[in-house]
């Protein structure tokens, strides 16, 4: 699973992308929904938890919290940005 990071999520993680090993390799339980992914990421990067407003895209389409994700999806975290 590849996660593209934009805006402040990129600043928080410190990198423009994150790659996850598939569950079979890591042995850990992988997130199955957008909501679970957010929780999963929030454990490693607690500052992500305070983002009340964060658009998540799965394969270039906006996805709700209960959207199912799998290891071949491309995810993007797109927080709002304000500059002009």
């Amino acid at each position, binding site marked *: 699973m590849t996660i593209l990071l934009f805006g402040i999520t990129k*600043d928080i993680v410190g990198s423009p992308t994150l790659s996850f090993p598939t569950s079979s390799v890591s042995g850990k339980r992988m997130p199955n929904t957008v909501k679970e992914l957010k929780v999963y990421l929030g454990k490693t990067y607690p500052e992500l938890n305070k983002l009340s*407003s964060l658009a998540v895209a799965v394969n*270039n389409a906006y996805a709700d919290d209960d959207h199912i994700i799998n290891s071949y999806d491309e995810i993007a975290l797109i927080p*709002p940005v304000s500059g002009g």
Partner: protein
Amino acid sequence: MDARYARQIQLKDFGPEAQKKLARSRVLVVGLGGLGLPVLQYLNAMGVGTLGLMDQDSVELHNLQRQVLYSEVDVGRMKLEAAHEKLMAQNTKTTFRLHDSFLVRDNALDVIRDYDIVVDATDNFPTRYLINDACVILNKPFIYGALHGFEGHVSVFNHKTGPTYRCLYPNMPSFDEVPNCDENGVLGVLPGIIGTLQALETVKLITGMGEVLSGKLLVFDGLQQRFTKIGFNTNPKNKKIKGLQEHYDPLDCRVVASISAEDFQSIREQEKIQLIDVRTPDEFEGRHLEEALNIPLDALKSLPKNFKTNRKIFVICESGKRSERAIRQLQKDCPDLNLCNVAGGMLKMKTLCP
């Protein structure tokens, strides 16, 4: 049609009809900063008939790094006046309407009503949500652009049955979760890229040619040279807004009085100031301004006893975010205090006095 526009009129997908549509259209550009200026320069060049300019800021030196319509001699002038002067010289046929104010809850509907399209070229969330709600109420499309560092967003919201800003971001982020306003840096050329893309969408909306970026958010990452397009749908409840909210300003930068680091530095050089530094003791020890009194944000309950409350009190932190929060905290109990945030904080001060 005018020979002036021959190069676009000769395009098969454009032609004299599209040129006439441009001439008849009325576009309001909210914000005369990094995004608004390229939007205006190109819409004006291409022959949009009526352009509305709206801003109440003045030109500051550190604007020149990205606001390319302004010259050094314009520093200190009102943006509205400087931009109008240059745009008039560029195209004397354009009708310019000048709005010498910020867009706020009390003027938004009246101002927007007389335009066909609004370009959101603002630099803060409250105004973006205000534009969104006012455009939904008045049934006007608006062209959204926004920036963060090396990145930018572009989309067309509220185009016919298409989605709105709230379909992407339902509620305004709280002021401590995402950088707002002036705090965040931006690469000089980024607003040029995003602003010209906004101008293109404006022209497509007016003329009906091509595919408008409605229901799609374009996210540009300048470092990686990556254009990502995200599809999203209309949430019908966001199209049903009937009135503006009571308040859009709790997070508005303009509520917390702030001063640029440059201006702050010149005041420091001229007079004895009152200054609170709300960083942690460790950060304070690393480097601080000599007149600063250190009261970390979490220990700040009230003003120090020896501070004169009838005089201005400056507040500083590392980037300008915690000091803004400190001011809001203090103002909750004493709204009349004359508190002023040092925008950009010690980070900016260090670039001034290395």
